[in-house]
């Protein structure tokens, strides 16, 4: 059975290869091929999952070594897979949500002439993401890590004729590359410390390494996670990534790829557990990002960017949870899964709205869409309730647990983190209610576009509807399923370990407070966007709002400091290379030429002057010969 593991990766990879190399003759049915590859992989995932279920806890992790990849002296990189309880959760999430989104895309991309290629990229993404979560060592994980980055790049920039899309794609890749430095340095550190970078041996030997080394590895892994999961300070690419087609935003930039950072931290729990400094950094990054994303989400009028801010914020929760250590790992993953459902659902809903609105993304041009798109409204609404943590829906189970764990962290830190998480929850409720109200409630605010076509909002085809329904069901039920009998905790504990912690507040108190702040958030939003009509043009807004619209000025900072500085540096270096280094080279040539020009003047054509040089030469010869003897 274990030898099915490579098939998981192989199916979408083969799909991608066929779709990308197959050429135009596959245009007619290529998308179904993509869906098939994805669902087949999901099927295999299910088979493996049930197979794992049937085994005892100790026997559940499965290993499959394919071949030796790069053997050089002590450096032995293997291509090997590891399917344990953690991986299988991801496998099912990736292939499951992935298949749904493939299906959705069949409808969404129906009118795009390059749909085949789109499915090829999606399949490529699935393969890379599966490789990422199935790898049994960091170097192979790195391959998947960059592979998803590539797929993300290709998909964000899928509409390449739009300069903004191309720029966004490039930005995403670059920022991710900065994070990748972290992963490479972490691997190098592991290799130079342990002589290996395979999960098992590294985790087994982690306790032998010095605190400094472990902290270094942890921080570097955190850097990598920041890049991939759009955490502060490497978060700037995610908002721009919304240039990609909406299914991409749903799958890659909400449900799966961006959560890879959480996977990385959780997978490396053995290292983080021994490196408190790295953990502290992780919770800080998570807490800051969850607030950051939430604030940005409040200010955006672009529905996808608002959701992107939300994604950032929710992943902030996960990262914070993962940083909390054994009390948080499980809930980080649990929130990751539930988030996968509801955020994917929300994005698909947003896509459906855009589909019906001629690709309009500005929420100020929506309004009252619930009448035109009832199915979208219902599924989006369920997702909305799930994300704000409405009791009983999946967000409630996962997010409350994280808030609880934050308090359980203990001490001042615990209080600060807990409070941040609560504030985040309130803001989440605010901005999601804002999105909901601006989109589906109130009066219609859409207008004819430049060419006079007025949008005719309509419900999307069933290929798009079915996935939305399925995801809505997940948004509603997944949390309860996981929480029931602590099944999720039990499932993951063998991998990540689990610790209940000692919360200063009881579980019910936390739930109560959380519910109160959520209600507050909803109320404020209703006051601002429900009770009074939404303006079609955005108000100037407060300083914070304006900053938040600009992603809290991070892009401006990047632009001035990194891009501007970089451009100046580059221009200077180009100048230096031409005038400095090449100047020296050309200068030497010119100097030789100049010397030559001066020296040849000695050759003046007068025989007597030649004789003089001979005579002088003779004198010098005689003099030096004599001098040599004297000396």
């Amino acid at each position: 059975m274990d030898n099915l593991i490579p098939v998981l990766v192989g199916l979408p990879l083969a799909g991608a290869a066929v779709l990308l190399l197959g050429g135009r003759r596959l245009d007619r049915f290529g998308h179904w091929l993509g869906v098939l590859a994805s669902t087949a992989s999901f099927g295999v995932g299910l088979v493996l999952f049930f197979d794992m279920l049937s085994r005892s806890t100790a026997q559940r992790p499965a290993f499959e070594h394919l071949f030796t990849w790069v053997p050089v002296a002590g450096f032995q990189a293997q291509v090997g897979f590891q399917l344990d309880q953690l991986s299988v959760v991801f496998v099912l999430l990736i292939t499951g949500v992935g298949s749904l989104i493939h299906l959705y895309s069949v409808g969404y991309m129906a009118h795009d002439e390059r749909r085949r290629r789109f499915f090829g990229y999606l399949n490529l993404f699935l393969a890379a993401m599966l490789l990422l979560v199935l790898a049994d060592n960091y170097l192979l994980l790195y391959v998947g890590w960059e592979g998803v980055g590539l797929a993300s790049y290709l998909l964000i920039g899928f509409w390449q004729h739009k300069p903004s899309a191309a720029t966004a794609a490039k930005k995403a890749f670059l920022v991710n590359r900065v994070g990748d430095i972290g992963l490479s340095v972490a691997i190098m550190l592991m290799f130079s410390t342990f002589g290996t970078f395979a999960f098992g041996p590294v985790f087994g030997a982690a306790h032998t390494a010095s605190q400094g080394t472990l902290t270094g590895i942890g921080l570097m892994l955190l850097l990598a996670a920041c890049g991939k999961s759009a955490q502060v300070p490497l978060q700037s690419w995610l908002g721009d990534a919304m240039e990609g087609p909406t299914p991409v935003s749903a799958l890659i930039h909400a449900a799966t790829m961006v959560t890879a950072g959480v996977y990385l931290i959780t997978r490396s729990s053995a290292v983080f557990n021994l490196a408190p400094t790295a953990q502290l950094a992780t919770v800080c990054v998570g807490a800051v990002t969850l607030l950051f994303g939430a604030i940005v989400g409040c200010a955006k009028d672009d529905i996808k960017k608002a959701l992107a801010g939300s994604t950032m914020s929710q992943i902030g929760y996960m990262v914070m949870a993962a940083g909390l250590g054994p009390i948080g790992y499980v809930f980080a993953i649990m929130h990751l899964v539930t988030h996968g459902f509801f955020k994917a659902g929300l994005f698909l809903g947003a896509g459906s709205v855009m589909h019906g609105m001629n690709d309009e993304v500005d929420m100020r041009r929506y309004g009252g869409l619930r009448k035109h798109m009832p199915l979208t409204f219902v599924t989006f609404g369920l997702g909305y309730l799930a994300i704000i943590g409405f009791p009983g829906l999946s967000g409630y189970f996962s997010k409350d647990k994280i808030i609880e764990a934050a308090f359980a962290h203990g001490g001042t830190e615990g209080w600060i983190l807990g409070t941040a998480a609560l504030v985040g929850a309130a803001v989440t409720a605010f901005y999601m209610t804002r999105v909901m109200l601006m989109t589906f409630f109130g009066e219609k605010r859409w207008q004819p576009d430049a060419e006079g076509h007025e949008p005719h909002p309509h419900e999307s085809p069933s290929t798009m509807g079915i996935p939305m329904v399925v995801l809505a069901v997940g948004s509603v039920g997944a949390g309860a399923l996981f929480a029931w009998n602590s099944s999720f905790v039990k499932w993951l504990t063998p991998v990540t370990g689990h610790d209940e912690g000692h919360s200063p507040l009881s579980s019910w108190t936390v739930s109560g407070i959380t519910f109160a702040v959520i209600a507050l958030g909803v109320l404020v939003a209703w006051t601002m966007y429900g009770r009074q009509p939404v303006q079609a043009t955005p108000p100037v807004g407060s300083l914070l709002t304006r900053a938040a619209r600009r992603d809290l000025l991070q892009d401006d900072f990047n632009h001035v400091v990194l891009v501007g500085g970089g451009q100046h540096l580059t221009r200077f270096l180009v100048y230096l290379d031409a005038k400095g280094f090449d100047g020296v080279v050309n200068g030497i040539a010119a100097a030789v030429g100049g010397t030559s020009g001066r020296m040849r003047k000695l050759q003046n054509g007068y025989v007597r002057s030649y004789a003089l040089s001979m005579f002088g030469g003779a004198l010098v010869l005689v003099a030096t010969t004599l001098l040599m003897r004297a000396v």
Partner: protein
Amino acid sequence: MNPVNYLYLAALLFTIGATGVLVRRNAIVLFMCVELMLNASNLALVTFSRLHGNLDGQIIAFFTMVVAAAEVVVGLAIIVSVFRTRHSASVDDTNLMKL
């Protein structure tokens, strides 16, 4: 007289010849100066011959004379042909080739 004085004389003649080559313009005079240098050498040779008490130096002096004569033949031929072309025996006029 001390034979060494002849050496001094030879050196003096040689220097006069060399200086003449440097300062005179007329090709013939220039050449005569070279001849003077050769003869200075002859004087030195003969003096050394006497100092060493063997005849080599004197014989060499004869050879030198022959060589000088041959040189005159060739030199005058060249100088004369140049003179006929340029109507000038000044060596400073022959400076078409330089740099």
